[in-house]
């Protein structure tokens, strides 16, 4: 098991290297660089810089160097000093910006992941065991609505409901008065009252998808011979189902950890913008639009790392859960 984990971690090294290359290449792809986009913004505002200043800025930012030099400077900074470069637009080191955002992103991701599990597990089991019953059809209907409704519309609707009927301050994860306050019980409660909208919105489609996956998997497993074996032992029905087929149908639940992190960062950007959530998505979007290359590149790289870590965690959990994986 330990050897397996070490091997997996070692495999991550070349993958990460490739990912850093691709991340850097992607942010170089659009024509121009941060300066050109900055200059055009300034030109729109009527300001013009002389050639000398532009050249000075260019060399100051390192933009006059060839691409591979820029890459090497960036990657050595990360590897040796944990320095992800400097955000042109925010005039701050990238690392400070990112850590701020990553915390809230992780918090929302994990909370919504648990919400997805908590809702879809019982419903999925119910739907599979009572297939084609009224309850199953009702949940299926709701599930498809959840899949079909665009997240941002749901977000807008819930914000309206929250503001209009509950008189809540909506958007963000804190009310204005708590934003800079130190942690207290009141601040925590305030956070909870803000969190329910993003959690429901983000968990909605995941839950619907997970119910379908669990229902399909469990339906297959329910007709397996080992279920008959368990019945023939004299186990009561609920024990038969929970202990054997459900246990085996759980694998996709665990695998979902792997894809939920990247999905939350990139997939729900629009929702995060609508809800004014301080997560990574909106920041990344702005960095890409403004060609703030070190910020964007670092974000993409970090998301790659998160994906790999998520996959690793889910693979390890799968191996713990399922001896067939552990032994092969």
């Amino acid at each position, binding site marked *: 098991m330990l*050897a397996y984990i070490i091997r997996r971690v070692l495999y991550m090294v070349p993958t990460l290297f490739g990912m850093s290359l691709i991340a850097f290449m992607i942010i170089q792809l659009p024509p121009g660089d941060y300066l050109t986009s900055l200059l055009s913004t300034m030109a729109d505002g009527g300001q013009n810089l002389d050639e000398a200043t532009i050249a000075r800025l260019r060399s100051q930012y390192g933009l006059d160097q060839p691409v591979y030099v820029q890459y090497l400077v960036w990657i050595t900074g990360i590897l040796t000093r944990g320095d992800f470069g400097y955000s042109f637009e925010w005039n701050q080191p990238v690392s400070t910006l990112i850590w701020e955002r990553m915390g809230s992103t992780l918090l929302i991701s994990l909370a919504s992941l648990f919400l997805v599990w908590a809702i879809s597990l019982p419903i999925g089991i119910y739907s599979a065991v009572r297939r084609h019953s009224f309850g199953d059809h009702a949940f299926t209907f709701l599930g498809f609505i959840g899949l079909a409704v665009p997240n941002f519309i749901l977000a807008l609707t819930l914000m309206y409901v929250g503001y209009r009927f509950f008189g809540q301050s909506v958007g963000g994860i804190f009310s204005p008065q708590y934003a800079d306050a130190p942690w207290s019980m009141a601040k925590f409660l305030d956070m909870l009252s803000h969190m329910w909208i993003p959690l429901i919105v983000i968990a909605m489609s995941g839950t619907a998808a997970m119910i379908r996956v669990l229902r399909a998997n469990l339906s297959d497993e329910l007709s397996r011979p*080992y279920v008959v*074996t*368990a019945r023939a*032992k*004299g*186990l009561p029905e609920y024990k038969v189902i929970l202990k054997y087929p459900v246990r*085996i149908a759980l694998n996709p639940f665990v695998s979902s950890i792997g894809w939920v992190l990247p999905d939350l960062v990139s997939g729900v950007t629009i929702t995060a913008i609508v809800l004014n959530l301080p997560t990574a998505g909106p920041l990344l979007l702005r960095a890409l639009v403004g060609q703030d290359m070190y910020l964007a590149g670092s974000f993409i790289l970090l998301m790659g790392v998160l994906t790999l870590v998520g996959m690793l965690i889910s693979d390890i959990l799968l191996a713990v859960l399922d*001896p067939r994986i552990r*032994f092969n």
Partner: protein
Amino acid sequence: MRDTMLSVRNLSLDFHLRTHILHAVRDVSFDLRRGKTLCLVGESGSGKSVTARALMRIIDKPGRLVGGQILLDGPDGVVDIAALPERGREILALRGGRIGLVFQEPMSSLSPVHTVGSQIMEAIRQHRKLSKKDARVRAADLLRQVEIPDPERMLDRYTFEFSGGMRQRAMIAMALACDPDILIADEPTTALDVTTQAEILDLIRRLQQERGMAMLLITHDMGVVAETADDVAVMRYGRIVENGPVDRIFHAPTHPYTRQLLDATMKLERGAAGSPATALFEAKAVEPVISVRGLTKSYGSVGKIFGFGSGNGGALKAVDNVDFDLYPGESLGIVGESGSGKTTLGRLVLRITEPTSGRITYRTAEGREIDVTDLNKAELRAYHRDVRLIFQDPFASLNPRMTVRQIIADPLLVSGKMTDQQAGEKVAELLKMVGLDPLAMERYPHAFSGGQRQRIGIARALALEPRVIIADEATSALDVSIRSQILDLLLSIRQRLGLSFLFISHDISVVRYFCDRVVVMHKGHIVETGDAETICTDPSAPYTRRLISSVPNPDPRNKRMLHRMRASS
């Protein structure tokens, strides 16, 4: 104490399907006696498995018990199981407590994610008030009784670490965990090799006699019936057509269906003496079509990337240095247990699997010799037109979304030699050849039974007018009577078209019926090669003798298995 442990009276089961009600079981009556075995015989779909499970009230949806009594004798008098509430505590106490169940799929009848020990201990603790520690001791004792070596350690193993035979033993241990009075064994050995089958049947028999259990054994194999039964009930279309002591059923059957079943079995047993197989092939003066020399396939010798895994030097040799010749018009049987490498051998000859070393020489119709191991992709395709494969599973080997016409014409159209209309005519001709109505060609595979599907598979193999056919367990998924029909079909086709067959099977009686010569494989090696008749009646290699003597004999007066030869290990 009464002699009869359980008696079933007029049991009827219905399946409520979407369009109609299927009467799966009708008015079935039989008795299970203490210490005696009743064999329930019938072909697939006859209702024998549902009947057996109904005794424990395990009836899959949409099945329903609609009438009859299941009377179980007990310490507090007779209980009618059919009248108990479906999910009541009495039923749960009976299941595993008084009636144990062992069934077919040893691969999937135990949970893959729980240890063998935990599954057995669960069965024990469900009915007995024992501490975990005591349950573990008892579970180990049970494993010892079913002859699993090193039971203490095996308790912590998972089922996928067990062989098929070991799993079936573990399953039996679980069924016997609470000393039931009745054991239901539903095709307990169908998925096992003959030698393993013989061991498991021995074991069940011994345990039954030690415990004086009544047993209901379900099987489709008349050989197994003859070896194990005291009484026999023959089932067809949900009814018991004939019921009686085993000797009378075998030697004085009254119902025509029983006779038909026995005839189909005996025909194979009599073997080549009654079949035209020997007449087909004589001369060895001719050059072989396919000749294989030193063929070897080893797995797992490649070093792992990053070098972390357990770098074992000794690679597993699935096929080890195999030589044989296949002559034109000959049918060569390849016999062996699972894991003997016979299927790999077939795949190597087709080069679906790449051989590690060795030569395969193919002689074309024009007499040119080709080294198959050297062919490039295009040449390999031409080779595959001449050498074709018939699969084992008639259900999985036909694409359910294609009509029969599309399935059979596919190789014709792929080879690009025919127009659509010509292909249609050819398909009709092929269907007639395999004994199907050409009008059936627009239908989809699901409309056909297993035997008919295998005929379609054969027609597909014949479409390109091959010279050699490799049949990998082509008849093992079929019922006895269908099996002999398909074998007769293959024989007549072979005669008419002068084909050579490489006939891979674990079933010795089938090989004896169909083949001229037989190659016996064991652990990747060829143990013995010779005439089919000689191999089956007077084999010289010790392994072959052991194998042949493990085949159940369909004659209750001559139980071969009891006197069989055992491995000397």
